[in-house]
Structures are given as structure tokens and as C-alpha cells.
């Protein structure tokens, strides 16, 4: 983990408001793990003051790819970067996904922007991967060329009509738990339903969570998530996560 300047190699819109930025930073690319994140200084002034955390989407050779949604001032500034520009990055930060070997069914579940960490996870995962991608409508579906995709949209504008957990129920609920490993990332509502689903079928699941952060490396204590294992306690999304065993946290 370190602080460094990275130069923008490419930046483009993949869907309306969704941007992909490819940064040249060989050292960070070398050590990046799926599910970890990068904290970017979007402005050299005091506004916005805090860095912005983004899940590592992919890392290959000398580059790190991030995906971001144009939401506020910080992402707007980021979207204005051009190839050759330099940004200060901190990372890779946090604990990522731990791909488990020897599992017959490696299941990726993504909701909306939650597709972000899966391209790198796909590179690092052995065995057959099935990807389930959900969103309210086809506009929210981000596919990123992930392996063996199935789509669920609540309005039925693409793929299965219903939410992605209902699709999961249909497709994998009958499989023996020891043959299944689930990796999830998406909105809290989806993760909550995923937790119930996993409890019901006794599936092991790792989920990537999200929280507003100040520092991103454990000193500010600003990003707690409620611990399911220690009563009254919290875990820090930035340092203990962002990826947790779904049993460890209350969603």
C-alpha cells in the first residue's frame, strides 16, 4: 500500500454516467487483489477535501482499471481527466475477495455498479464461474464481459424478470453447499437478500460492502459496519473489509 502519482492511460464512458478509467501505476497493479480499493485525490485544492474510494475493477500488467458512476463533485472532476493527466492514488487498500480453489460452482453476483470488482476476480478464480447480474432495468446492467452471464431486471427489460436473488434461487438453490462459493457486490438491499438466501441454503458467501470514508486505511474510524459476531461491536469497512464473510456482518 502506498501513495503515488498515476497517469491516466484511458478514460471513457461505458454507459451513460458510468466511466472507466485506466491508470498506469505498475507497482499498484502488481500487488492489487480483487475486491481491494484505491483512494483517489480528485482535487489538488481543499474541495472536495477527502479522497474518493473506488473498487479495483481490473489490474493487468502496468495498469489498474477503475469504474465510477458520475454522482457528485468528486466523480465529475474525475470524469474531466484526460489521457496523460496525473492523479494521486493511495492503495491498494483493504481486504479483498479470497478466491477459493477446487469449488465446482464459483458464483458471482453483481447489482448495478457492483459489477466493478469482478473482472479482476474472474482472472484470479479457478473453476467454472457463473455470473448473475441484476438491476432495476437494462439501463442499470453493467456486464463488463464477465464469464457466463445471466441477467435479471426487475422491470423485465432484459433477461429474467425479477430480482437477481430470485434468479439465483431458480438456478443454484439445489446445488450442494460444498460445491458452491458465492462472491457478491451490490446495493445493501441486494446484499441483505443475498444473506437470507445464503443462510437458507447454507452457502458460503463473501460480499464487498460500501461506506463513506474519510481516510480509507483505518485511522479515522469513520466507516463502521455492524459486526454480527461481536455484540455491540463494529468492523471497519476500509480496513477489516470491504470484503467480509457474509456471516460476519449485519446488513
Amino acid at each position, binding site marked *: 500500500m502506498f*501513495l503515488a502519482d498515476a497517469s491516466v492511460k484511458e478514460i471513457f464512458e461505458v454507459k451513460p454516467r458510468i466511466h472507466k478509467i485506466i491508470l498506469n501505476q505498475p507497482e499498484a497493479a502488481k500487488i492489487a487483489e480483487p475486491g481491494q480499493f484505491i483512494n483517489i485525490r480528485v482535487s489538488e485544492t481543499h474541495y472536495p477535501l477527502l479522497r474518493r474510494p473506488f473498487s479495483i475493477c481490473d489490474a493487468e500488467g502496468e495498469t489498474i482499471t477503475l469504474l465510477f458512476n458520475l454522482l457528485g463533485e468528486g466523480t465529475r472532476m474525475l470524469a474531466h481527466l484526460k489521457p496523460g493527466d496525473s492523479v494521486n492514488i493511495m492503495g491498494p487498500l483493504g481486504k479483498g475477495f479470497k478466491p477459493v480453489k477446487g469449488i465446482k460452482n464459483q458464483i458471482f453476483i453483481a447489482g448495478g455498479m457492483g459489477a466493478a470488482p469482478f473482472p479482476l476476480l474472474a482472472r484470479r478464480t479457478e473453476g467454472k464461474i457463473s455470473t448473475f447480474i441484476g438491476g432495476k432495468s437494462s439501463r442499470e446492467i453493467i456486464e463488463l464481459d464477465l464469464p457466463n452471464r445471466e441477467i435479471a431486471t426487475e422491470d423485465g427489460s432484459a433477461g429474467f424478470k425479477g430480482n437477481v436473488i430470485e434468479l439465483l434461487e431458480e438456478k443454484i438453490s439445489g446445488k450442494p453447499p460444498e460445491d458452491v462459493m458465492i462472491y457478491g457486490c451490490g446495493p445493501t438491499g441486494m446484499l441483505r437478500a443475498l444473506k437470507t438466501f445464503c443462510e437458507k441454503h447454507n452457502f458460503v458467501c463473501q460480499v464487498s460492502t460500501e461506506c*463513506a470514508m*474519510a481516510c480509507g486505511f*483505518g*485511522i479515522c*474510524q469513520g466507516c*463502521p459496519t*455492524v459486526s454480527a459476531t461481536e455484540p455491540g461491536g*463494529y468492523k471497519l469497512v476500509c480496513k477489516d473489509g470491504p470484503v467480509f464473510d457474509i456471516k460476519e456482518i449485519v446488513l
Partner: protein
Amino acid sequence: MIPDLTVVTGKLKLKNPILLASGTAGYGSEISQFIDLNKIGGIVTKSISLNPRAGNPPPRIAETPSGMLNAIGLANVGLEKFISEKLPYLEQYDTAVICNIAASSVEEYVICTERLSSEKRVDAFEINISCPNVKEGGLIFGNDLDKVREVTERVRGATTKPVFIKLSPNVPNIADFAKAAVDAGADGVSAINTFVGAAIDINTRKPKLANVTGGLSGPAIRPLAIAKVLEIKRKHPEIEIIGIGGISNWKDAVEFMIAGASAVQLGTVNFVEPDSGERILEGLEQYCAEKKIERIRELTGSFIIIPPKAGQVNYPDQSGPPPKRGQAGEL
């Protein structure tokens, strides 16, 4: 000329005036990935209380223009775990360790101070009576002159090591609080803790912090903090002050020292640029060299304030009328 950056505040000697503020540097182990702790004057620990505290429910932070609100709620590992698990990490560094203590009773302040005082690695204490986010351990002490006297006297009696009282800016007369602390035996004061602030989400109409209010920090509060430090120093020039509030570069640190601080603490900037301490030190050294300041401590309280005479305008350079229109001036 290599300027002398050492400073002495109260009985505390520091190799330079740069400290990392409580709650923005943890117990050192995370931030040391980015900054060489040997280079800075010292680290003020995250507030330690007798028992562990889990902290407030989320959300705990909200960004604001050039600043941030926090309502962490003094989340910390507790006294015993601090001593057994956190303090040993700091053994390897040649830098001052200032233990920040938060408590919900006078007795708890005393127990923590006494226990930590016997630890060799602890060089000084900063007593947090000003956390805006918890009732006990914060506002009930920091806003009451008698309580400040009582806490200071009792803590003073519990240790021979330097004691600094961290003051709340949320009072109308901070100089009186500083005086009360020093009269009761403190070596000096840390000024200031965060300002009470709040922010509301206009879509949900809910406060952005679960605690409703939080402490405002960052560059946004620097002028407010400078005013508080000046207020103390002008009223009580003898009081030792550690300046805190929105410092993000060496110029800000110099400004605090001129206003009256003997040393300064870096806070919110650590979240954004955790290596800033080293760069600020380089800037301070260069500033002193350029201004031919042999000892940086000469800066402390060196402000020049000339009260204007009745009917006369005070020009910033004090040397005469301002330059005429169209004429190059230095202003």
C-alpha cells in the same frame, strides 16, 4: 544555516513542532506506512478511555466544504489493550508519545493517567475534555470552568509528566478556560478541538450523521482556530499553546505559531495526505532559513498587532498610505 526546529512547551521537549493530532493517526501503526514517525515531533494517540468503546452508530462522517464532520464517539481499544497491544509498537520510534485520555468521570481520568504515567513510552498527556460527540467525557467537562479546574487538578496530582488540556472552541471565552487549566496545574493547552456542526440530506431530510451533530474539522475551521489561539495568547501571553485546526501545509503551521502556538497538530490532513507531516517540516525549515530565523520557537506569539489610533486607518504594512490607483504596491 540549519534552523533549530526544537521546541519546548511546558516541560515537554520536542524535536520539532509537528505533532499528529488525536484521532487522526490511530496509535501509529497504520499511518507509519506513509510517514516516518521518527521525523516528526510526536504523535497524540486516539483518545483512550478506561474501558473499550465501540463508538457511535454509522454514518459517522460527512464531507463539508473544505472540511468534514465526524461523530466517531471515541471508539477505542481501552486502557489495558492500549498498554499491552498498541503502546509497544511505538517503542521503535524516536518521537514523543502523547496519550490522549477521554473519560466520563473525574475518577476515570485519574485512573487512566496514573496507570499510563508509569509507562516509560508515554511522554505526556493530553486530556480530552472537549469531544463534541459524547455527553460524558466531552461537553460536561469542557464547557464548565469549575470542571476544567477539577479535572486538571486531579490529573496533575496523578502524574509528574507534562499535561495539556484539550480545549473546546464551543465556548464564548476560551482564554478563561485556558487560564483555568493552567492555574490548576496544566503545562499548557491544546487549542482547539472541533466545532459543533451538522449537515442535512435535502432528499431524505435526515441529518447526515446518525449522531445528528458532529465535530467540524479541516481547512474550513482554520481561521476560527487561529482566532481562538490569538485570543488565548493576547489575554495570557504566558500560556503554552499547542495549536490545532485545519492545518494542511507549512504556511498554516507558521500562521499558528505566529498566533501563539509553541507546537502544532496535524489533523484532518492526515486522512488525505498522511505523509504531509514530512513535507510541512521541509517547508518550515526552508521558511526559517529564508527569513533568517535561527530557532523556530522565536515564531511563537510573534504576531504584530498595532491598535489603530482613533480616526486613523491601519494599513497592513504600517508604513504609510496605500499605493495610489495604478501604482504597483506590495499589497
